[in-house]
């Protein structure tokens, strides 16, 4: 047992990366998210086969292919329900969802609400760049109403931006944090905390799209470390969010204690080989 633990500890961040080179634009925030994610997995001392990363479609959703853990690249907007199915079928896996503000809050917005409500023990990492990067720069739900950079919103969206943390809190997310891609060490630390916290954990990452939102390169100077530490009181967290401008980063905002949704069946403690044998027809 001890030997196994020691074996586990040997893995470094790079061991969680696949040999496929990311094709993101140079300078894209998603590179540092990938680094933080792999660093977090090393810190958690999980074997690659103990982890699954699920995504939808988008630049951010390419992450699974760049890792050496189980990866699932689904259809646009469906990452959360796919991950829910996966976690319920294999509760012993550590399941993370990595996607974007478009995948998660526009086409998949409905699932976001219900994933928070259901509170399955998964960690949702949203790379928020306030744009659809992959389709070349259209406004997303988190885009400011006066951003006129896309021809699809000729006058700006003119509508209220989606507030992931507020909605997540109201819907029942059990762990809520915001981090900046410009601070990979802290990002990794918070991903570790999010994974360790039971239930549905939401981590919003401000991850600049340098190609279609070049002004986001300034985020690294605009963001500030949140002054207060996390609360376990949802009402207090809600009050903090009321005065939040979206740039308070680097700390956990809320840790709830709702029990996670768990499948009824018993988890087998048999070996993978035994488990596999039971599937052979």
């Amino acid at each position, binding site marked *: 047992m001890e030997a196994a633990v020691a074996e586990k500890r040997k893995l470094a961040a790079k061991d969680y990366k696949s040999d496929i080179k990311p094709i993101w634009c140079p300078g894209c925030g998603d590179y540092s998210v990938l680094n933080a994610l792999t660093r977090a997995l090393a810190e958690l001392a999980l074997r690659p086969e103990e982890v699954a990363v699920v995504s939808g479609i988008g630049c951010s959703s390419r992450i699974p292919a760049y890792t050496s853990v189980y990866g699932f690249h689904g259809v*646009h907007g469906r990452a959360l329900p796919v991950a829910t199915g996966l976690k319920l079928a294999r509760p012993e896996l550590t399941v993370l969802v990595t996607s974007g503000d478009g995948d998660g809050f526009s086409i998949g917005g409905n699932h976001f609400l219900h994933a928070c409500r259901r509170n399955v023990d998964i960690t949702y990492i949203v790379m928020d760049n306030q744009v659809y990067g992959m389709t070349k720069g259209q406004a997303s739900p988190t885009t400011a109403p006066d951003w006129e950079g896309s021809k699809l919103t000729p006058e700006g969206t003119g509508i209220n931006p989606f507030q992931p943390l507020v909605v997540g809190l109201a819907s029942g997310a059990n762990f809520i944090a915001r981090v900046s891609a410009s601070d990979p060490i802290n990002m990794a630390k918070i991903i570790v905390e999010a994974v360790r916290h039971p239930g549905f954990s939401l981590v919003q990452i401000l991850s600049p799209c340098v190609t279609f939102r070049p002004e986001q390169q300034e985020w690294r100077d605009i963001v500030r470390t949140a002054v207060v530490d996390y609360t376990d009181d949802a009402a207090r967290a809600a009050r903090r969010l009321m005065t939040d401008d979206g740039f308070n980063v680097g700390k956990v905002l809320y840790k709830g204690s709702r029990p996670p949704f768990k499948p009824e069946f018993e988890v087998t403690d048999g070996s993978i080989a035994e488990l596999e044998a039971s599937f052979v027809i």
Partner: protein
Amino acid sequence: MLKQMEGSRAVAEAVALCRPEVICAYPISPQTHIVEALGEFVKDGSLAPCEFINVESEFAAMSVAIGSSAAGARTYTATASQGLLFMAEAVYNASGLGLPIVMTVANRAIGAPINIWNDHTDALSQRDSGWLQIFAETNQEALDLHIQGFRLAEELSLPIMVCMDGFILTHAYERVDMPTQEQVDAYLPKYEPRQVLDPAEPVSIGAMVGPEAFMEVRYLAHAKQMEALKLIPAYAAEFKSVFGRDSGGLVHTYKADDAETMVVAMGSVLGTIKDTVDEMRAAGHKIGVLGITLFRPFPIAQVRAALQGAQRVVVLEKSLAVGLGGILATNVRMALSALPIDVYTVVAGIGGRPITMRSLHGLFRRAEQDDIDAVTFLDLNRAVVDKQLDRERAKRRSGPAAEAMLRDVGVVAAKLA
């Protein structure tokens, strides 16, 4: 006026000339340039009055279109591939409610495996949805068919999909003859809805209909589609008188007169096929072409008339009915029922595989000798499939097929993902 422009831009300008009042869209390649251009026209005021709505998904796009069309506004949207599948429930709803929405489908493959390139499987998945479906061969035809599309949809009170090959047409720069606003206004009357949500005369749209009348309501849509078979040639003729060119219609034959072998296809691949046929004709082969412009309703009588003199028919389609073979071919067979003509299904170009003249030469020559399978997959790399089948036979848990097959052909999975 003659202009050199991208296919998407040409379609956007044509749609703008049709004076849509509501446009809603969610971006997806290769549709995006069309709706981005329309957004630009709304911003610069050249398309007014028009509401342009950037929505949160394709399901929302079609649902917004349903709402605005029900309120009596001329309504346009566009999508492709996964987007079309995602909106499918609303697609059926729009046609069931008889709402004359015009939608461009920038044809693209559907996944899994994820693929952004051209084929016709997206639009053909909706062939029974009750929408009229028309396929453009060139960018000129794509722009013309949108103008005819609004006219037809609004006359029949049925929605229409104008299908154009993704990338091959949407992203190609070609010369097109762009009509003037006066011409379009002369051809396309102001929209007079057959049903409208009007506070002055309140009605409810969307009744629940049980077995007592469901078949009749659905039959009405079928009867209207049959009517389209008469209206379309008339509208195409009228189009010619206003715009001075042939565009649209039901089907088009090419070098078909004494053809023993007839090739049937839809969309832009007809160009490659015609070039191949030209060369084969020059070498003495009796081969001709039938291009199908209208896919729904399917012009059974016209297809039969065009093909009945042939000895064999090769249906080359960018789609695959898994477990059967062809979709277009099945329809063509129906048109030829009880005739002693061999019909070959050729599945070609799916997921964007290039259809080359070289491959077509080989295929058509073998077909002339009746030396092809009833269902043929053009340029299929059978060895790669066999290798995967072997793997699956050898091991129960053989892993994801697409990734393994990509490795076999020497491409790293994520490069394409």
